[in-house]
């Protein structure tokens, strides 16, 4: 087990900057998720840590040791799990799990012992003699995890390991994965484009786009205090509502944002609470069982491409009719301000609070 330090890492492919100056430090035993849309460089970053790609420049350290390009993947003491699980189809479950140990010339009885320990942990002892093609997706994942863990790696790299499972299996597998990581306490870097996985699994999340890390923080930090517009709109389902230049709220050149679940009818708040109210024209109500999504616009800001969305929990029994204008509000403390040009988050401009029916 060891910490992973990444300093100013670049990886360029024929002019395309897949990883464009990434700094990241993963603490010993920490579970870090690289989150971003496809093509943002997260998988390339992971593969560079694994040694499958040579960095164009920059430095990677694992447990203080510099992993230069002379250190091949096999000498890095890491385990990696691919999206496909990459189980060797011509080897049994036992053969698959024992494969990395054979590379280390481990004595036969020790191999036996370690494989038994691993399969017991994942409860797949009865599959030892089966071939991967006879296993379900979830079972394959466990075999791949067993194979990864028997080497006692210093770090664990996972590339979208849950994307081959169906939605129900995914929840179970996520729980299993997290418990396993907490048990063995191995430093883990996990790549995904699924923010639910990222929020649920990560001790910290690195949100990436276009080869850069936009924010690196705990799930709560990333969600509550997004560092810029990209993070604000990428994380959260539906994404954060952004309003352009409302003079009463913020000076020109600033955007105001708030999460759909904070945008509630005025009557849901107490009379004396510090809220900012809006006149909200509801175009459509979407009933989703556990919650309702409202699509609409603020009177002055009609933009059919970017509807203002409110997310009402099922607990809130208030009747909201479509095609009407309602009084909605956000806790003033839940408003986020961004610089229109740079996209960076700004401090709230203190003075501009109160009513804002612009």
């Amino acid at each position, binding site marked *: 087990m060891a910490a992973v330090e990444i300093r100013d890492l670049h990886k360029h492919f024929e002019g395309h900057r897949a990883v464009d100056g990434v700094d990241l430090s993963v603490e010993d035993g920490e579970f870090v998720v690289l989150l971003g849309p496809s093509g943002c460089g997260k998988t390339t970053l992971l593969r560079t840590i*694994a040694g499958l790609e040579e960095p164009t420049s920059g430095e990677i350290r694992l447990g203080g040791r510099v992993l230069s390009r002379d250190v*091949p993947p096999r000498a890095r003491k*890491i385990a*990696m799990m691919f999206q*496909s699980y*990459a189980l*060797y189809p*011509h080897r049994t479950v036992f053969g698959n799990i024992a494969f990395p140990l054979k590379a280390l010339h481990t004595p036969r009885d020790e191999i036996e012992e370690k494989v038994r320990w691993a399969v017991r942990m994942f409860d797949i002892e009865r599959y030892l003699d089966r071939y991967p*093609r006879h296993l379900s997706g979830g079972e394959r994942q466990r075999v791949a995890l067993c194979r990864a863990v028997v080497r006692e790696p210093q770090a664990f790299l996972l590339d979208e390991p849950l994307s081959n499972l169906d939605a129900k299996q995914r929840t179970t597998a996520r729980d299993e994965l997290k418990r396993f990581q907490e048990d063995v306490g191995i430093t883990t870097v996990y790549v995904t484009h699924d923010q639910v996985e990222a929020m649920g699994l990560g001790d910290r999340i690195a949100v990436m786009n276009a080869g850069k890390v936009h924010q690196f923080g705990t799930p709560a930090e990333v969600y509550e205090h997004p560092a810029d517009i990209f993070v604000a709109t990428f994380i959260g389902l539906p994404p954060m509502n952004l309003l352009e230049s409302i003079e009463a709220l913020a000076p020109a050149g600033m955007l105001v944002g708030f999460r759909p679940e904070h945008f509630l009818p005025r009557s849901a708040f107490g009379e004396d609470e510090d809220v900012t109210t809006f006149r909200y024209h509801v175009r459509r109500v979407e009933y989703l069982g556990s919650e309702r999504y409202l699509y609409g616009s603020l009177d002055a800001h009609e933009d059919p491409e970017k509807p203002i969305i409110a997310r009402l929990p099922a607990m809130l029994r208030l009747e909201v009719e479509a095609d009407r204008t309602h009084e909605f509000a956000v806790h003033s403390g839940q408003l986020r301000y961004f610089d229109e040009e740079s996209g960076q988050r700004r401090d709230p401009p203190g003075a501009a609070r109160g009513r804002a029916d612009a």
Partner: protein
Amino acid sequence: MSRYRLMRYARRVGVYVAALGFVTFAAFPFYWMALTTFKQNKDLYVSATNLKHVPWIFNAAPTLAHLKLLFTQTAYPQWLLNTLLVVVAVVLITVVVAVPAGYSLARLAGSWGEGMGIGIFLTYLIPPTLLFIPFSRLVAILGLQDSLWSLVVVYPTFTIPFCTWLVMGFFRSVPWDLEEQAMIDGYSRLGVFFRVVLRFAVPGILTVVVFTFTLVMQEFIYALTFISSVDKMTVSLGVPVALVRGDVYHWGALMGAALITSIPMAIVYNLFMDRFVEGLTLGAVKG
């Protein structure tokens, strides 16, 4: 009987007729070889005006005379042995060179690999009728005239290009993930090649063996150019040289030689065919 039932029968009859047609097409040459091998000469050479003679059955008692001629009056056993030696040597050389070459082109050469692979394949298309003259000069320089070694040296020039190109395709079908996984699991590129990749390439290697086998067995021009002693000939050269004398064709012995050579090949092909199909249906990474 309903119309549909009738149609079903008609369809089935059609299938069997078609199958029978193909079987006849494929088996008839073998039947003809066997028939000619065992026919007496008076049954083989019949006046064209004799319309009562049925050519595709025995009209006189079968005989072993032609086989006796083949085995006692010619060096046929020696040719078989020579052919076997050349085939084994060329197959070995081809596999040892083409398999690593194909892997390198498919995996290590990057975007150049494809172009180089096609370039190498193109050399296979240059016909031996153009190459045998420069090759005979080279063979002379190497001092290999009238030696089986000349064939061992020359045959790989057409087997290797073709087979390199062939195995490239097989290596490309090996999932990248598996190779990278094995590298992370602690193996060097070479270790990955031997422990993971080769297992997937078995059908490819078998195909290489079969193709090399075929190409070498049927080769005639180089053998004719470089070999002059009867006891150093291969089957494909020795048979026409020794059994066609002037305009006299020893058809019985010719067909006997062809039959004996082709039957083991047919059996070997069938064995490989099974492995080949098995290899193609091997379980992939994702189920």
